[in-house]
C-alpha cells in the first residue's frame, strides 16, 4: 500500500512535467498539471492508509 502510494505521488509529478514537453497547448498543460496534482495527493492518502492499517490505536491493549 505504501509503495503503491509512493509510485502515485511521484507519478503525479511525472504526469505534470510530462504535459509540459508533450504539448504546447495551454489547456492540455493545465489538464495534465491538475491530473498530476490529484494523483500525487491521492498517493499521499494511499501511503497514509498503509500506515493506518497498523496504527497504534488499533493494537490490542493500546491505551486510549
Amino acid at each position, binding site marked *: 500500500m505504501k509503495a503503491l502510494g*509512493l509510485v502515485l*505521488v*511521484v*507519478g*503525479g*509529478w*511525472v504526469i*505534470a*512535467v510530462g504535459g*509540459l*514537453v508533450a504539448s*504546447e497547448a*495551454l489547456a492540455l*498543460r*493545465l489538464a495534465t*498539471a*491538475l491530473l*498530476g*496534482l490529484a494523483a*500525487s*495527493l491521492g498517493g*499521499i*492518502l494511499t*501511503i*497514509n492508509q498503509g*500506515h*493506518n492499517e497498523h*496504527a*497504534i*490505536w*488499533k493494537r490490542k491493549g*493500546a*491505551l*486510549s
Partner: protein
Amino acid sequence: MRDIRWRWLWAAGLLAAAIATGAPARADEEPPAVPLTTADLKQVPVPSTEDLAKGDPGGTLTGNAGDIVVADSKAGLTFADVVTQVGQNRIAINFVWTLIAGFLVMFMQAGFAIVETGLCRAKNANHTMMMNFMVYGFGLFAYWVMGFALQQGGSAGIANLGGVQALNNELKLTLFGKDWGLFGTKGFFLADTTYDVGVMVLFLFQMVFMDTATTIVTGAAAERWKYAAFAISTFFLGAITYPLFGNWAWGGGWLSQLGANFGLGHGYCDFAGSGVVHAVGGLTALAVSMILGPRIGKYNRDGSPNAIPGHDIVLVLTGCFILAFGWFGFNPGSTLGASGAGNLRIGSIAVNTMLAGCTGSFGAILYMWMRYGKPDASMSGNGLLAGLVAITAPSGFVNPTGAVIIGFAAGFLVCVSVEFIERVMKVDDPVGAISVHGTCGLFGVLAVGLFADGKSNYGGSWNGVEGSVTGLFYGDPGQLVAQLIGMCTLVGVVFTLSYVFNTLVDVFVGQRVSADVELEGLDLPEMGALGYPEFQLVTPGLGRSIEVGG
C-alpha cells in the same frame, strides 16, 4: 473716433498673434546645457570644524559634502567620488534593509517555539522548546556546509545586493532542447570567492528562511519524536530537501524558468516562500507525522479523535503575535532591497501581509464560532498564521483586495484542513502545522496564479521574463499552470524525499520514543530535565499523575 478704435483693435490683434506665435518659440529655447564638473563640486559649502565643534542640535550641519568618501585626498572631491557614493548608498540601503528583515525572521524562532510549546502538554515543554531551539543550530550548520551552495550557488545577478557574481555555477541538465537547472555548486562553507559582502547578506537572509521550514516539522511531530531522529531529520532538510526546491524556485532552477523555457507566465513565482518555506516544511511535517503515528490517547479504538489540549494558551497567542511581527521581515524583506528596481513596493507588501493575517484570523474565528458555537483561541491563532502563510507567495504581486480575500479564504481553509487531517486521515498534528503551513502554503502558491494583478515591476522583469507577474483573474492563465506545476513538484518531489529519508531514519535509528517515555513525558527521559520542575503534572484521561519537584 471709429478709426482710432479700429487701430487699437488692429494693434491688439497683432500683439495677441505675436504672443501666440512667440510663446512656443520661447518654450523651445532651452538654456544651454552646462556640464557639472569636479570644479563645481569644490564650490559646495562644507561646514567648518569650528562650526561643527559647537554642536549641531538642529541636525542641519551633520551629513554634508565633506562626508562623501574621496578616492584621493590630495585631489579632493571629484565627480567620480559622488557617483561612486550614490551607487554604494543604494547597495548599503539594500544591505541594511535585507539584514534587518533577516533579523526579524530570525526572531520568529521564538514565536514558533512558544506557540508549539504552549500547544503541547507541560510534561513535554522542555523537549518541545529544545527542538525549536536546536533547529537553529542543526539547520544553520547544514545550510552553511552545503545547503546554501545547492540553493543559491548559481544565482549570480541579484542586482539589489551588488550582483553576488561569485555565485556563478548552476548544474544544468539539457532535456528536450531546454536547460533544466538542478542545483548550484558555488558557496560550500562560504569559502573561496564566496567570502563576499553581498553573498554574506544573502546567506543570512536565506538561512533564517530555511530555519523557518525546519521548525515547522517539530510542531507536528511534537510529544513523541526521538531527539536523535529529530536532529538527523533536521540536518537532511536543511542540507538537501529545502535547498533543492529553493534552487528550483529562487536560485535560477528549472521551475523559475518555466516562463522563459515554456512560455508559462513568469515561471513559478513564489515571492517570499509559501511554497519554498511553508509547503516544504508542512509536507515534511506530514511525512514525519505519518511515520511517527499519533500520540497515545489521541484516537479511540473506533478511530474517533480525542482533544489533547495544550498547557498554555497565553504562550500560544503571544507566539502568534511574535510571528506576525516577524512576518514583516519575511515578506517585505524578500525584495532583497529598498532602493531602486521597483523596491518601493515594500509598503504594499507590508500592508498585504498585515491584511491577510487579520482576515485569516477573522475567517478562522468565524468558522469556529459558526460550527462549534464558541470562538476558539488556538484556531484563531492558527487562522492568523494561515493568512500570513497564504499571502507569503503572492504578497509582492497582489493588491490589498486580493490580500484580504486570500487571507480570509486561508482562515477558513485551515479549519477545514485541521478537521480533515485529524478525522479523515487520522494523522496527529498537535499544533496544526500541516494545515497551517502545508495546506495554506500550497494555497498561497495557487493564489499567485489567480490574484497577481500585473502592477508590480521589479526592474521590469521577473525570472527573466519581461513585464509583470499576472494571474488568471487579470488575464494570464499560463501563470496559473506554472503555479500548478510548482505545487505538483512540492507534493511529488519534496514530500517523497522527506518521506523516504525519514523512513530510513525510522529503520536505522527509530523515530518514535517508547510508550513508557511518551506517557511519562519526554522532558526527563529525552532531555534530562523537566520544563516545569516545581509543578504537579497531571495527564487527563490517562489515569496517570506524575508528581515532581516540591
